[in-house]
């Protein structure tokens, strides 16, 4: 089901384009059977629109040639990595071409002496992390989808992850990009004087061009990681503990928070022993040398205890560490224990506003039969607000109203409507809450400069 | 008016408007003052017609609005201490000095953010946040002179770049007045945000060609418990480079700063070193490590051992802040000392892959012999940054030779996969020019900057 009806002329134009594409790129790089195209109609948002064709480029030339033709005939084109995005980024809303970059997945080179690596966009993030680990190097951005999402997708969304507080996000690790622009021309950004085109393209969500080579910065791999779980009977205590840890000049590798609703869901799910009196949980990883961990862990334990944690558990073995982290990983599926449907928001507020934000969320929820679980990267203020709702159509409506209210509160508190998932088409309606009109217009000017025909990922980011 | 306005770029009418908008006391046409704005650290002498010192965003907005209407070029200046022909790029027009916009607007320690006006001197910001046990990385030789606005405009690296990255990594939000006078707000004061295009980071490093920053929100980090410093002197450059490899690549130690200086640089600062640097030293490394007490001690000792393994003549570990500052002062005095020794002809910032520094330096000294010019190199070789100076004491032929020499080195650098400040490819340049036009159709902001 297409969102936009095509006119007859458009259909003919598309046909010409498709024929030329097949000729230029080669049959073997094209999927035209509907049984194939269906598999490229969605991402993790469950939206489905079947594209007219799927093209699987092998190299920069293929990408460039495809874009030239798409541009010539004004056929919409949607780049795709693993299709794991949470905001609709890869969904071909207007049909057209899905550009599957999954098989452009070579790790081109790793230069350990220079602390850099160059990859093609289809490389799975975890594969890169594993490869560079062999050289004792570390690529820190670690979105929860790292085991299957691709670098290209990460760069397009400026993915974050659990290591964001200490190590930063994707944009902090990209040195250079080879980008094919909508007209098919190839540019290389980064490592040069002039404007920071690299950063402009990072997080552009496939609306400005396609990445064909990505060079990343690597850092030395921390020797060790140690994990601690702290249990609280009051969520404010947990938030205070997180603050105090940072006040103690420690930036943990990860600092994750789970609220009561989240804990209840997880408790039933994994059968992990989280006692009934636990109303909030902090999961903390610190990394470094034996000495620095030996120095920091006791401080963290004390800090949690000072903030009324009634129990802290430091993982003694790899198994215990896995068990603690299994709790965090099981959140997403466990939430379905509460209700069958979910809206997952990843708002980010200034750290000092976290408590207030959670209060406001509670207030919004009050009186309604709907469930909201809050968890996430409390260290940098990036909270995943998950609204769980039932099958009844009125529930869906209610959920959407709540999201709307939450977004307004977030912006009012100086926060951002998305800390790491991006806008796609799921949040484009909220963009103008955060982005004032003038800036919004400037962004659209950038878009029309690079993509005058509007063929790159149309329907995403901007409503109009 | 005390003096006639020399140039007819700014006529009487416009002058009146400007004074009307922001107050006569903030507009200067005195030749002496204008003369002060005529150069910055690269010794280029161009004189503006007016010097304007606004106090607020509205004033900046008014100024730009008027200038835009009347096609008057504007160059913005912080303290002019940043290199690479930073401020005045053409003759005439307005020099906009933001020194009066120097408030720390708000420090949100809990949020790990600080918002400042552009004229805040870097050191003042660092001193302020230290009180909350926070720090803003991006230490550099010019901290007591350079302003935040400047740093963001140029996207400086700073000596802590090795571990802490560059200015851009810390800019969260900007209030910018763009050439037509309108005020835009890019970014959010949160540690993470991905809504829409990254206008914020796009503006960082735009060197005043797209607008004027009137508020800057920076990310801060918790202050490390301790900083340890060690200076190692080597009998030759090879040993110093080997030591660097051992420290960074083989041992994966993560120093906060790693600076190198060659013999010429060492000789230039000899009178200030209090005998710390041995006569035979032909290269030195100055290294900072930070973290908690124990870690720092361990790392410094490791580095000490690695330097000795690589034939260090002498290593000096500091134990107090004063000792540390004294060593860093020596390093910071290299550049000024070099200009004292001879009128510096050329300097060039090279950026090469870390592993190629050795080859580039080799080429530098080879060419130095060929052209019998004095070459000196210092800088953050840990990151592949080499600051090259060609010094001589006479003009004329030497000029040409120096240019040739540097060109050859630049070519070498290019073929080694690096870049220097001067290079830029054509398609990307066209795009940047177009984007510049988007913000500044009349081309009034720092004309001649970035695009030659």
């Amino acid at each position: 089901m297409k969102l936009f009806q095509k006119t007859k002329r458009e259909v003919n134009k598309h046909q010409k384009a498709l024929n030329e594409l097949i000729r230029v790129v080669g049959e073997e790089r094209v999927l035209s059977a509907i049984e194939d195209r269906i598999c490229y109609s969605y991402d993790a948002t469950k939206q489905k629109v079947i594209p007219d064709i799927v093209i699987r480029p092998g190299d920069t030339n293929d990408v460039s040639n495809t874009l030239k033709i798409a541009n010539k005939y004004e056929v919409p084109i949607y780049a795709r990595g693993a299709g794991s995005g949470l905001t609709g980024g890869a969904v071909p809303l207007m049909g057209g071409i899905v550009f599957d970059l999954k098989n452009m997945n070579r790790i081109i080179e790793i230069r350990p002496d220079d602390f850099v690596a160059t990859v093609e966009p289809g490389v799975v993030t975890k594969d890169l992390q594993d490869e560079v680990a062999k050289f004792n190097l570390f690529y820190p951005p670690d979105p929860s989808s790292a085991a299957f999402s691709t670098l290209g997708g990460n760069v397009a969304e400026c993915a974050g992850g659990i290591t964001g507080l200490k190590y930063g996000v994707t944009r902090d690790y990209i040195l250079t990009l080879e980008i094919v622009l909508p007209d098919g021309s190839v540019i290389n950004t980064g490592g040069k004087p002039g404007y920071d085109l690299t950063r402009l393209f990072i997080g552009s969500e496939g609306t400005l061009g396609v990445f064909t080579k990505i060079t990343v910065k690597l850092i030395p791999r921390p020797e060790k990681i140690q994990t601690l779980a702290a249990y609280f009977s009051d969520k404010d205590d947990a938030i205070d503990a997180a603050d105090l840890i940072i006040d103690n000049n420690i930036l943990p590798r990860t600092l994750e928070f789970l609220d009561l609703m989240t804990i209840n869901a997880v408790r039933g799910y994994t059968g992990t022993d989280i006692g009934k009196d636990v109303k909030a949980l902090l999961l903390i990883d610190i990394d470094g040398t034996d000495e620095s961990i030996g120095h920091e862990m006791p401080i963290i334990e004390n800090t949690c205890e000072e903030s009324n944690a009634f129990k802290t558990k430091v993982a003694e073995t790899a198994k215990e560490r896995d068990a603690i982290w299994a709790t965090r990983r099981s959140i997403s599926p466990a939430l379905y224990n509460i209700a069958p449907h979910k809206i997952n928001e990843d708002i980010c507020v200034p750290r000092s506003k976290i408590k207030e934000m959670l209060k406001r969320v509670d207030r919004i929820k009050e009186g309604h039969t709907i469930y909201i679980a809050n968890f996430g990267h409390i260290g940098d203020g990036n909270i995943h607000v998950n609204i769980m709702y039932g099958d009844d159509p009125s529930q869906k409506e209610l959920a959407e109203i709540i999201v709307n209210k939450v977004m307004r509160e977030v912006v009012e508190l100086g926060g951002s409507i998305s800390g790491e998932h991006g806008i796609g088409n799921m949040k484009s309606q909220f963009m103008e809450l955060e982005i004032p009109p003038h800036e919004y217009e400037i962004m659209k000017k950038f878009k029309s400069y690079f993509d005058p025909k509007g063929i790159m990922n149309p329907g995403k980011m901007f409503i109009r | 008016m005390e003096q006639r306005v020399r140039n007819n770029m700014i006529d009487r009418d416009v002058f009146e408007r400007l004074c009307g908008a922001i107050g006569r006391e903030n507009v200067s046409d005195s030749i002496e003052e204008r003369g002060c704005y005529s150069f910055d650290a690269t010794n280029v002498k161009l004189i503006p017609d007016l010097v304007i010192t606004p106090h607020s965003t509205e004033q900046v907005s008014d100024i730009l609005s008027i200038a835009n209407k009347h096609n008057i070029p504007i160059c913005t200046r912080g303290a002019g201490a940043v290199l690479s022909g930073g401020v005045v790029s053409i003759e005439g027009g307005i020099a906009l000095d933001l020194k009066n916009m120097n408030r720390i607007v708000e420090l949100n320690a809990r949020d790990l953010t600080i918002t400042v006006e552009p004229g805040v001197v870097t050191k003042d910001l660092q001193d302020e946040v230290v009180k909350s046990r926070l720090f803003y990385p991006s230490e550099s030789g010019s901290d007591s002179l350079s302003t935040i606005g400047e740093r963001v405009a140029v996207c400086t690296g700073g000596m802590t770049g090795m571990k802490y990255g560059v200015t851009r990594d810390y800019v969260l939000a900007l209030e910018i007045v763009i050439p037509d006078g309108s005020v835009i707000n890019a970014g959010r004061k949160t540690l993470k945000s991905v809504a829409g295009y990254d206008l914020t980071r796009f503006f960082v490093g735009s060197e005043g060609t797209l607008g004027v920053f009137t508020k800057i929100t920076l990310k801060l980090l918790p202050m490390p418990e301790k900083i340890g410093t060690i200076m190692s002197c080597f009998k030759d450059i090879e040993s110093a480079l080997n030591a660097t490899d051992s420290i960074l690549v083989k041992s994966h130690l993560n120093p906060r700063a790693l600076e190198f200086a060659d013999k010429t640089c060492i000789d230039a600062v000899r009178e200030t070193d209090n005998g710390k640097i041995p006569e035979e030293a032909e290269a030195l490394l100055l290294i900072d490590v930070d973290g908690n007490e124990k870690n720092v001690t361990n790392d410094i000792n490791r580095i000490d051992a690695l330097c000795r393994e690589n034939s260090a003549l002498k290593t000096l570990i500091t134990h107090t802040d004063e000792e540390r500052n004294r060593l860093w002062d020596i390093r910071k005095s290299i550049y000024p000392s070099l200009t004292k020794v001879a009128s510096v002809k050329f300097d060039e910032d090279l950026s090469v892959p870390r592993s190629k520094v050795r080859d580039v330096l080799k080429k530098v000294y080879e060419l130095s012999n060929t052209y019998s010019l004095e070459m000196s190199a210092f800088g953050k070789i840990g990151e592949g940054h080499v600051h090259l100076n060609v010094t001589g004491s006479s003009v004329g032929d030497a000029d040409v030779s120096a240019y040739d020499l540097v060109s050859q080195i630049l070519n070498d650098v290019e073929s080694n996969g690096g870049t220097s400040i001067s290079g830029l490819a054509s398609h990307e340049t066209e795009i940047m020019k177009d984007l510049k036009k988007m913000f500044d159709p009349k081309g009034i902001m720092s004309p001649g900057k970035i695009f030659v």
Partner: protein
Amino acid sequence: MTTDWKEEVSKCSKCGKCQTVCPVFLETGDESSVSRGKISLAEALRDKQIVYTEKLRDHVYSCKKCMRCRTVCPSDVDYEVIISALLRGVADEMGVPLLPKIIFRYILPRRILFDLMLRIGSKIQRFIPGRKRGQMRHLPLLFMGKRWMPTLAEKTALSKFRTTQKLKNPKMRVGLFTGCLINYIYVDIAEAVVDVLNRMNIEVVIPQGQLCCGTPSSSMGDHKSSKQLAEVNREVLESHNLDAIVSACATCTKSIKLDYLRTLGPSWQKMSDKIYDISEFIEKYCGDDYKTKPLGKKVTYHDPCHLMWVRGITDEPRDILKKSSDFVDMDMAGSCCGGGGIFTIIHYDLTLKMLERKVKSIERSGADTVATNCPGCIMQIADGFAGKDSSVKTTHSIQILQKALANGDVSKEK
């Protein structure tokens, strides 16, 4: 098609996590290879956006049915139900190809015909030249492709063990479900099971009426045939009044223990509870009863998909091997070897790629023998090594135990 697949399909949250473990996706990078893609095809069928076509059939057949996806699915989608429904749909709408249909419906249910067909084959094989390391270069027969296939046994396991070896006071009486590969090719595995269990004072019956477990039929969606076979097997197994039923084939175990619950209904639960993989059984009932003298061999273990991913059994075979040999683990022991039935026929090229990865893992382990608990895997991996002219031996873990027991059993040495 049954209706519960629709429920399962709607549980899929489209997260994409199945991409991390799907062995076929690992090779192809095609979304149609992975569970999420197949689920979207099932949705499209449900919503009448597509109908059954050859292309759809290709996609359905490209599933390895290893069930690794189930172990990581955050929404706990019962993918088995979905893929079975898709296969049945293919069979119902497009029919089962003629030759397989004949075999499934007319030969598998008739032991005599099955025996006959294969006995003729075993006679013919003598005339085929080029034996290599116990394997023979197979003719590009029917649907087998260019592979090194093991020779057919002279005498089937069923006929060899027509009479039960009676024990005086057995601890238990268990039935051995051989499965086709062990019955016709790897008879020595059946011998090893009987030998080992007898030494542990367990009497072993090989019920003569047993038929093929039905996996080949269900893997092509021929539910009529698989039901037919299940019903006969039920009768046979129930009639013998056994304490437990063991199998040395991971796929057969999965089939009769789990799949039969769907085919035969909840009344099978009681029997299902008594069905074990041979290693599982030994560890559970005989754990401390035996004494081995470990063989000097360096042995590594490959986790069959149907044992590891479907049933979560990974420790028991390893524990046995640790007692029986110089055991070394290989990296990625749980990665699919690419073997097993229909998939290997239709997607031979993918099979080879998966096999290559497995062979490399084994080589990296430094072992001179690789043991596993599935004759399908044995056949596949042996094929891989024969092709490389390697001396690495492929065997069943029960055979290693058998040798180690014989080693350690001083009383039996005559």
